[in-house]
């Protein structure tokens, strides 16, 4: 058996063992994940179903709109898969300790590449089935498909997922191999990319100019539709293939499936050849890329040293945590993806013209946006803030001896997290509110909400992180998967629901004029007091408990 096949078989064994050991995980965690997955599948399917029902109620327009929305949906999914493939591919090919270990074993580089490629494709793609299944399922359910038809259509997703995550790995490999080193070359590279992006935008604009009037209206309404419908885009083959089956054109559908499968075959054959050639050189380049003889501090380091004033533990942690965050792509890329997607969505709200509609709609959407923003903030605080105290336990030989208490260290961590979340949350909330042009009382509540949500989330994650502090060299994933991490995730989500939905409901009722016994000012004042008191309690109480734990425990 080839080394690559052996390694893949070993990896599958590991996955199988992990699945078998589920019963050893905290019950609360298994229940939560199970309940969340079911809720996710059911609610997303229901949302897609409602969307299709709405479109088909429009009559003839649905036959024009549905294929285009299919292409757009699969293009978005494809880009997400590419990004995911690039990130997991980079981690698997260059970052994992496993690769460094295998380099000293008698495993040919080609086999090491095949193994990492398969692993990345598996890792980057499984989650996307949770989006594809509800989408195709809802469409099939609405169109009364048989189970056989549904399964046949879902077959499309396998080559689709492989194709886009493979493309992500290919792009990543090219970038890592040929990205210019040094500041000047880097700047030239960035300028070239900017020029390429500008040219691509112009090309798409030219294509738009040659469209029918209906399509022109739709393209202006939904950005990216023109690119998504381009006949050479694989997302278009996926959409056309599924819709051909829906329209009883099985031959055409099968042809699209074959087209996808053959493209995957060509891509993976190319990747195998290209990777075997490029990977060894790229790995050497990566392993020797450290700037060990640099005599100058990095620009970002110098900026941060001057940015934080005074001399205090807060300054020390502010600089240290910012530098580590900026130098760890797995950290900033998650922030960038989540908050970047929200920013794009908020920016697009302007083109949908909500400000011209009834204020009920803009108000409702403003609070739904606050909820989605807070939910993202809660998952990021659970991912990044909660493990902070446990991660610092490795440095207690120095941090624990500094003339500052561990309680103060916890407060510093809380302050930094609260400030960072508050800045990002307030900025994005302002973007959403300015696009929706909501009324003054709702605007005030939204402005108050974000810093208070940040305080509640940062306080809860830091306090619980201190209470359930884990000692020893554990990774953030290991820290999060414990009882404390799961409890924190549940409590932060619960506090977001209480903090955002209640003011949202009151504000909505106010706009609908359903609260006649109180004036607008009174409702705003009462809701503001509710937000402040609840968030201070939600953040403050866990901090108090964490502080007490740190004072009494041994390290």
């Amino acid at each position: 058996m080839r080394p690559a096949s052996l390694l893949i078989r070993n990896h599958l064994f590991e996955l199988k063992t992990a699945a078998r050991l589920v019963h050893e995980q905290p019950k609360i965690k298994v229940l939560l994940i199970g309940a969340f997955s079911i809720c996710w599948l059911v609610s997303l399917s229901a949302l897609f179903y409602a969307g299709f029902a709405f479109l088909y109620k429009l009559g003839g327009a649905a036959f024009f709109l549905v294929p285009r929305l299919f292409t757009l949906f699969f293009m978005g999914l494809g880009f997400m898969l590419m990004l995911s493939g690039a990130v997991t591919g980079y981690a698997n090919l260059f970052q994992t300790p496993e690769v460094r270990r295998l380099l000293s074993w008698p495993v040919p580089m080609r086999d090491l590449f095949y193994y990492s490629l398969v692993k990345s494709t598996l890792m980057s793609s499984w989650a996307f089935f949770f989006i594809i299944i509800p989408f195709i399922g809802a469409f099939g359910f609405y169109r009364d498909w048989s189970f056989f038809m549904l399964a046949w259509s879902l077959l499309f997703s396998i080559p689709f997922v492989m194709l886009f995550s493979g493309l992500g790995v290919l792009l990543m490999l090219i970038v890592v191999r040929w990205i210019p080193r040094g500041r000047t070359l880097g700047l030239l590279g960035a300028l070239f990319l900017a020029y390429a992006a500008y040219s691509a935008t112009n090309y798409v604009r030219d294509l738009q100019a040659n469209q029918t009037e209906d399509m022109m209206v739709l393209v202006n309404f939904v950005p990216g539709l023109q690119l998504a419908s381009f006949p050479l885009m694989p997302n278009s083959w996926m959409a056309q293939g599924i819709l051909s089956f829906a329209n009883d054109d099985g031959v055409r559908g099968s042809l699209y499936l074959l087209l996808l499968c053959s493209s995957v075959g060509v891509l993976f054959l190319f990747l195998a050849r290209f990777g075997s050639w490029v990977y060894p050189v790229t790995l050497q380049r990566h392993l020797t890329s450290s700037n060990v003889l640099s005599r100058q501090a990095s620009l970002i380091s110098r900026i941060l040293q001057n940015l934080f004033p005074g001399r205090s533990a807060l300054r020390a942690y502010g600089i240290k945590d910012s530098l580590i965050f900026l130098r760890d792509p797995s950290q900033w890329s998650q922030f960038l993806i989540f908050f970047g997607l929200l920013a794009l969505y908020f920016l697009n709200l302007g083109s949908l013209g909500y400000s011209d509609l009834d204020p009920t709609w803009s108000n409702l959407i403003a609070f739904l946006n606050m909820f989605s923003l807070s939910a993202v903030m809660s998952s990021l605080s659970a991912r990044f803030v909660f493990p902070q105290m446990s991660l610092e336990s490795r440095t207690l030989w120095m941090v624990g001896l500094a003339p500052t208490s561990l309680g103060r260290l916890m407060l510093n961590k809380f302050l930094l997290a609260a400030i960072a979340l508050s800045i990002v949350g307030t900025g994005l909330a302002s973007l959403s509110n300015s696009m929706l042009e909501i009324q003054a009382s709702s605007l005030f509540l939204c402005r108050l909400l974000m810093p208070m949500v940040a305080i509640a989330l940062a306080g809860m994650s830091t306090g619980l992180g201190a209470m359930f502090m884990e000692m020893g060299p554990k990774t953030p994933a290991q820290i999060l998967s414990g009882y404390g991490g799961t409890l924190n995730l549940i409590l932060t989500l619960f506090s977001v629901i209480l903090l955002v939905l209640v003011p949202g409901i009151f504000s909505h009722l106010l706009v609908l004029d359903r609260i006649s016994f109180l004036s607008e000012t009174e409702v705003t004042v009462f809701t503001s007091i509710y937000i402040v008191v609840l968030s201070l309690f939600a953040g403050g109480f866990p901090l108090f408990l964490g502080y007490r734990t740190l004072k009494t425990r041994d390290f």
Partner: protein
Amino acid sequence: MIQLQHLNKRYGQLQAVDDLCLEVPSGELFCFLGPNGAGKTTSIKMMTGLVKPDSGSIQLAGVDAAKEPVLARSQLGYIPDMPFIYERLTPMEFLLFTGDLYQMPRDVVREKAPRMLEIFGMMDRAHALNRDLSHGMRQRVIYAATLMHEPKVLLVDEPFIGLDPHSIRLIKDLLREHTQRGMTVLMTTHILAIAEEIGDRIGIINQGKLVACGTLDELNTATPGMNKLEDLFLELTLR
């Protein structure tokens, strides 16, 4: 100086440290020897305040560690056997971080950090990421960071693991130099030859109890017929 009086620590059924009394005066390099699990690291951790003693008292540079923990810790430097440093910081950034953490004035930190790196021969790696440094280089960075705030008491747990001869010589010279300037050093080691070479006094701990303490000559005199520290150590700890 270090003053431990009737120090006790129990983990469940295990008496990790049993009525430990010890005094190490200023300017002395004290070597703390003992087999694995004898109570050396627990004793050191109690001195650092990371583990609280069940009973007994600790004085560091004349400060009661229980009554004034923050002041006591500000006099202390501690280097564990396998210390972790932030991999995504550079040695220079790590030293600046340490200076801020110890609330040293900014201009002092900026002047002192490069000097410390120079002393430890790390200036040409000052702006490389810690993750790209070898074990020996990391140890040098850790020594530089620990000594930057000029502690009066230094606790070192197994300082020579995995170091090359140059680094071992550098650290031995440095410990000698600092004790001559009045620093109190308490060092644990399993390398008996090093304890014989650089220790002013040697203490042997077994099952949480201090079973022998004195200069090498005093220990030899107290145990006739045993001319080597190795024989004495094995005799006392194999009982």
